């Protein structure tokens, strides 16, 4: 509703907790890139945004992508720009990293690594959860 918002710079009156859950590997399908676009758009609305990388989604933020050989855009550097849009809450599920032979040092952005149960609690505290 238009009445829920004002035009001043002091932010929106309604702030909801949004969580974006990334579960797909990059490049093999369009999900990862599309999800990133949605996160960037949501940043424009000054909401409380969390971004989660779990399952194959952890591969989205693996360091060192070089897509020259597959003729696709390397969008992995865009994750480092999230900070500039005040999207600072990035979480990774520890179990997903371990199953894929990855550690926190393999990732291009600073994240908080959470256990499944801690992530579950965080997910439960959201107003909106969007998964891709």
């Amino acid at each position, binding site marked *: 509703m238009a009445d829920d918002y004002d035009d001043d710079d002091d932010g929106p009156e309604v702030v909801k907790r949004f969580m974006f859950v990334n579960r*797909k*590997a*990059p*490049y*093999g*399908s369009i999900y990862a890139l599309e999800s990133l676009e949605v996160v960037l758009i949501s940043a424009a609305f000054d909401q409380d945004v969390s971004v989660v990388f779990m*399952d*194959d989604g952890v*591969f989205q933020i*693996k*360091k*060192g*992508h*070089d*897509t*020259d*050989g*597959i003729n*696709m855009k*390397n969008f*992995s550097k865009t994750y480092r720009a999230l900070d500039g849009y005040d999207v600072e809450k990035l979480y990774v599920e520890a179990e997903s990293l371990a*199953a*894929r*032979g990855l550690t926190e040092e*393999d990732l291009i952005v600073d994240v908080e690594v959470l256990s499944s149960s801690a992530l579950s609690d965080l997910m439960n505290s959201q107003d909106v959860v969007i998964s891709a």
Partner: protein
Amino acid sequence: MSNDIKMLHTVNKSPFERNSLESCLRLAKDGSAVLLIEDAVYGALLNTSVSDQVAARTGNLRVCVLGADLNARGLADKPLIDGVEIVDYGGFVDLACEHDTVQSWL
């Protein structure tokens, strides 16, 4: 003789999300080749939950992985399973030519 037919199996799905690689490894005959492309290249990584499944067949299958897809995903610095061979696009063509049939595990 049908038993002498050599097959190339290509797999393009992540082994953590689909069972394409698992089925391929179960059905591929000794002496045939498996080429991991696109999201299946994650199956070539060492120290993952599927590494043992792949390593168990590298002795009797030729297991290859497409280098361009590894590099795209930032995996050039990660150790691969022993015996897995990195090939380029030319190597992909060679594999297709060297084998009688190609089975794509989608």
